[in-house]
């Protein structure tokens, strides 16, 4: 089976959930909209595989971090729109702080030896 939507940068395990939640902070959105927004906001560097995106959306929904409802789009189509819940918002905050700690720590490791080498 062809896996078309390969990510140009491999997403770290668990980061997709955070990205989806972050994307929904700017308002309710359907699946395609989320994918497009991630692509645009990462300057085309990240492309989300639908085989990962939709399972993530339904998983987050089961965890009550987002809610979904059917809506009608501007061109009259039935679309399933996702919205961040209060729990999701809290979850996003804590995930982001964990993420920052992680990236800072990694950055520290990656930059430190350069000083010692000389």
């Amino acid at each position, binding site marked *: *089976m*062809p896996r078309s939507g390969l990510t140009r940068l491999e997403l770290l395990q668990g980061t997709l959930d955070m990205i989806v939640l972050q994307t929904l902070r700017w308002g309710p959105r359907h699946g395609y909209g989320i994918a497009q927004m991630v692509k645009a906001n990462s300057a085309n560097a990240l492309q989300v595989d639908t085989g990962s995106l939709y399972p993530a959306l339904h998983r987050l929904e089961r965890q009550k971090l987002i809610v979904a409802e059917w809506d009608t789009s501007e061109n009259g189509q039935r679309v399933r729109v996702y919205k961040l819940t209060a729990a999701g918002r809290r979850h996003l905050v804590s995930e982001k702080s964990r993420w920052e700690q992680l990236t800072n720590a990694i950055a520290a490791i990656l930059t430190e030896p350069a000083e010692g080498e000389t």
Partner: protein
Amino acid sequence: MNAEDEIREELETHLRAAIAERMAHGESREDAERAARREFGNLTHVSEVTREQTYGAIGIWLERLAQDVRYGLRALRRTPAFTITAVATLAIAIGANSAVFTVVNGVLLRPLPFVDADRLVLASYLPPDLPFEPPPGLADRNWLAYREHQHSFSAVGAYVRRAATLSGAGDAFRLTGARVEPGVFAALQVPPIRGRTFSREERDVDNVVVLSSRLWHERFGSDPRVLESSISLDGVPMTVIGVMPPGFGFPAESDFWTPLTVQLNAHNSFILSVLGRLRPAVTAEQARAELAVIMAQMPPDPKDPETKAEANMLPLKDVLTGRVAGSLYIFAGAVAFVLLIACVNVANLLLIRAASRRREMAVRVALGAGRGRIARQLLTESSIVGLAGGALGIVIAQVGVRALLAIAPAGRIPRLDEVHLDGWVLAFTIAVSLVTGVAFGLVPAIQGGRRPPREAMAHGTRTVGGATTRLRGALVAAEVALALVLLTGAGLMIKSFIRMRAADKGYDGSQVMTMAVDLPSLGYPDATRQKAFHARLMDGLAHIPGVRGIGAISWRPMGGVGMMGDFVVEGPSPVPHGFGLDKTLVSIGYFATMKVRLDAGRDFSVGDVAGAPKVVIVSRSVANRVWPGQDAIGKRVSMETDHPGSDSWMTVIGVVNDVVQDRSMEKHATMYFPIQQSDWGFILGHMTYVVRTSADATTARAMRAVLRDVDPTVPAQQLMSMDDALMDVAAEPVFQTRLLSVFAAIALLLAAIGTYGVLAYDVAERTREIALRMALGATPANVVAMVMRRTILLAASGAAVGLFGALALTGVLTKSLYDVSPNDPATMLVVVLAIVGVALLAGFAPARRASRVHVLTAFLAD
């Protein structure tokens, strides 16, 4: 709208939006669609992985199962011929298995219907090498000591079986019952439903009796006034003090219980059965050790000080069911073979079906169904077939159990009233259905999952699957092998049975009717009155129209009972050590009526009366053992082995053939005494009459009428033909033979159907090839030969494997076979020829169809 459809709609919206956006950027519709789809990936796959998140793992599993079941039912409905054949085949096989399991469960597996039945044991202290096999028990003197000193049991009691004639309540009737000590009821912990059981003070002379619920109901109309009134047993009035609950018949099918009083007798020792309930903390092994210790302190038996006995504690259930356990396990094994064959058949059907569904499966693979998914779908279908077969099988099992019990020998299988459908039987059937469903579905499922879709799509149903054809062939060979094992078993049993019937038994029982009586000691207290009864009865029997001969004998052949004893001979040469013989009383005319050949000397005659010189007739092996190389006629013997009195000597006047006495078909050394000269009241009280006649049924009625005229309180027992008497002692082997034959017949039929099915499919699959061959000059005879060659190859390879299986397995029948080796070559040959013959028959129709293939078929599209 269900969740699956919702997800699909959501994903399609996504796809449409992507296409729309690409078109908005100026791509053509076609380009946009292709690119968007490539970017999106496999829609079915995405939908599935998404759904897994919606429900969690178990939810998705259940949902898929429901989907598979729906799809499977639809697929099965599309092919009714397959579905009906497969379900019916399995229903028969599962039904047969469930029926046998129902009996095994009721008789062997279910606990006995007593409180904590596994605490009940029988104590035994007997020499291991007695000439006969007594039930476990203790000699009376040992029992009295053991009862005094044991601490293993919370309750324990001795019992012996007995029989008695009930009179004064309908026709006189022979009952079986038991003498029991109060400890037996205490150990069983079964209270009576009316009245009471025996107290410790009650003795056999108190003439009290406890009745079974069945007897109370059938003979006394459940009348509560029977309690404390009296009934007549062997002519003795007995006070009824209690009635036991329905189903209680300890030790087996007892209808009455009287108190047992153990008293030592200077001359005789009796073996008593001893039932005890182990104390809560005591194990059977501890109880056994205690018994051994107590017995070791006993003074040695003065009569037989050398005897070494073994202490044993046997679970009550094993003793009650031990005799039939072997038979039942053989049946269970045989019927499992039938199930295996049925599975092979259905597996073959599934393979054939899978071949014709290749295109359907390929399409599903192309649509994104994984191989595991396809395999699971096929397994679901086969499980549905298995469960449907099981559901129908339960119905068949109910009929089957009734049929099984109908052909079971009466009174030979214990606990029959406990045989019925219960939760365990249901669980067994469901488990068997599921396991078979998965087992026969596994092969096609693996095959189905493996098939490369592109090839299958292209070739459709015409792909010649070499591997599949070989596999089907192997399955046919396997079922031929399984059927051969069962057929061999049945063949051996049938041959054994024929040999047993045809065996020289030393007498000719055809056209002989027989009847036994027991004379109550109250009305017939001495030998004179007993002999008077026999004379009157025989006179009456002799006047029945059509009767050509009449005789009487204390224990007839095939009666399963006899009295063994020793004797001394006059003169220097002693009786060979350990040589015992049957001591039997006969009337004048007995040998002529039973056509027992007189080898030498003369028969008893009217001159051999009391007061005349005492005479005996010996059988051939007595003469050969005791007086080898001499003439036995005129030799003298005495039964008083210690100090023969001068008037105890008897002269041998004749030598007759040896006669077989039971189903072992061994000829017994026998000494015959004339009834007229006998004063052994304890033997004369039981007598069997033989009547040679050509009209069985009317003679039986007339014999009963004669007996009623002589004494209406004496019931007729074992009124039957001698042929039936033989069938009676052979009841278990006959039962085994019948059941094995039925299973073998089913197996053979299933194997034939399986062979036919596979060959017919082979021919259908190769129609084009056959047509081509004929176009190239093959004659119809060539084509027939080609198909038959394959048939023979399959049958012969199956038969070869089956022969090894039979050689390995028929040993379990050794005990049931008479004069036939478990590896009897003649039987094996016949069975192999039979099974190859049946396979050839099964292959003939497909072969003929193949020879009629029209040459043009080769060039027509499918």
